[in-house]
């Protein structure tokens, strides 16, 4: 009991241990971290400018000079992948975080006030969720237009209900817990109970949602960019790189141009899925 090297929370240690012993989750985390580091520090790994057009070097095969070859206007593919990853991952992570934040705020308001406010917010979330998300995204892109910021806004609009519903339902059930009543018996005010006691208890599953939805948004961005509705084609993103390779001749003769970004997208979202599943196992009290 009184040993010196006691860890503050054995629960945290147990959870960490559980996560670390899940090999698939670790592999997922490794892939994700690798891709994030490669993109974030792109200038360290490549000397090329992803937008520099050099027609004399067009459609090179992979070589030591150009690791993955060049595209049809002579831009280095490896550089484009790294810099493209920056934009794609940025959109994914930021959208997931903002969507979760919005969901948490609205969910707390809903759970805290209850009654009519809760009902209205719940209906709004149901309306959003009743549309197939891809269709809703397409419609919203039609209204707002292309662009990184617009994509983040759109993903937030489409994505907040999942967090909202979890937070709301968690708070509704936590509200009935005895520790809330004992807080009230100690004279602690409603807002303080809400934000200091209910919300922290409800946050666990949100981490999982953020992880999994980041992968989803990266995929969605790629899909939108591929059909020309995502980020402007001048900005390299993983979706835009594939879009640029959309040409029968290139598809047949230069597979690296579309296989490489495809693999990057798949690896990233697969890695996040593995990691997210691992996190879910940790947060799942049933296990």
């Amino acid at each position: 009991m009184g040993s010196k090297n006691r860890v503050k929370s054995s629960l945290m240690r147990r959870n960490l241990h559980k996560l670390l012993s899940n090999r698939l989750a670790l592999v997922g985390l490794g892939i994700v971290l690798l891709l994030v580091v490669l993109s974030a520090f792109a200038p360290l790994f490549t000397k090329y400018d992803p937008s520099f057009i050099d027609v004399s070097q067009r459609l090179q095969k992979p070589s030591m000079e150009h690791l993955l070859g060049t595209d049809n206007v002579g831009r280095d593919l490896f550089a484009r992948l790294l810099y493209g990853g920056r934009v794609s991952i940025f959109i994914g992570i930021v959208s997931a975080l903002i969507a979760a934040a919005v969901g948490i705020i609205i969910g707390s308001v809903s759970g805290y006030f209850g009654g009519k406010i809760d009902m209205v917010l719940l209906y709004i979330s149901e309306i959003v969720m009743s549309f197939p998300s891809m269709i809703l995204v397409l419609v919203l892109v039609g209204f707002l237009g292309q662009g990184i910021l617009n994509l983040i806004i759109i993903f937030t609009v489409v994505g907040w209900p999942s967090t909202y519903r979890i937070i709301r339902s968690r708070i509704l059930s936590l509200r009935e817990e005895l520790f809330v009543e004992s807080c009230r018996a100690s004279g602690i005010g409603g807002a303080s109970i809400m934000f200091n006691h209910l919300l922290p208890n409800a946050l666990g599953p949100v981490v999982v949602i953020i992880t999994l939805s980041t992968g989803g948004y990266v995929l969605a961005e790629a899909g939108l960019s591929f059909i020309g509705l995502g980020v402007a084609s001048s900005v390299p993103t993983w979706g835009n790189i594939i879009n640029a390779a959309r040409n029968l001749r290139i598809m047949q003769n230069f597979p690296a141009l579309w296989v490489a970004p495809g693999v990057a997208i798949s690896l990233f979202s697969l890695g996040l899925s593995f990691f997210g599943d691992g996190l879910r196992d940790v947060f799942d009290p049933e296990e």
Partner: protein
Amino acid sequence: MNEEIILKVENLQTKFRVGKRIVHAVNDVSFELKKGTMLGIVGESGCGKSVTAHSIMKLLPKNGSITGGKVKYYDNNGKAHILNEYDRNSKELRTIRGKEISMIFQDPLASLDPVYTIGSQISENLREHENISKKEAFDRVVSMLFELGFSNPEERYYDYPHNFSGGMKQRVMIAIAMICNPNILIADEPTTALDVTIQAQILTLMSKMQKTHGTSTILITHNMGIVAETCDEVAVIYMGRIVEFGNLEQIFNTPMHPYTKALLKSVPVLSSGGEKRLEYIPGATPDGSEVIKGCAFADRCKHTMEICRTKQPVESIVDGSHRVLCWLYDKGGKNA
């Protein structure tokens, strides 16, 4: 009776709306809590003892409301607060809750927030009511934990609730309730969820705290043994009414109400020797949503008379503070 009364409950009525039905959980409950004493509220499950306690603090669920009576609390300056007239989340009530009147709940396992250390939960209550620095709060919490029998309070301060056993958690709950040195402590079946050996420990601790801090305590329990062990005065509740009220000797030596007698007979006594069978009370508690014309205990009582089924009994004063709600004693009572 004397000026030492700290809490006075007069004709308290609490009702719950369950669908279309109205459940009368507390009917006309009146009692007084004297300063520095321990009052036991005894009764079987569902008789309204917890609701009485929650009504005092106005901690009723949304479908419950106090429909009549008064809960008067006299603070240190002798000022009377009529608690049931404050709004349920009003500032006045919140400054009284936890600081002047605090409460311990039945299930210590669920009464602590799992995401905070127990130290921060105890000092949260302290810092809610007293304007003191973190360091002072830490010191107060540590000395309180030490008083409650934690041998290494500085380390325990940083532990989470899951690191504690049930008895330890209940001690933490006592720490939370006692940290502001309240005038009244309401303990709602504090030992029901604990095993027998720990029960004794917690009760001893509560008696000790009550004596050293002079806290007036309301102990809610269904266990007559616990009452005999710790309380000064006893209120026996049946179907939301106090059927008998008196001090410990009066209730245990000269029980008057058939229900009290039956309760006392249903307590196992180890030293009784031989094969004495425990008695039980036949029948079940009636439905709280039905309006009973006569005495609610009439169907289960051995001494039921004609009048018991038709008229609600009136209170008879047996002697001094000893009062009973039963037609059997109507003739002898002065209040009849």
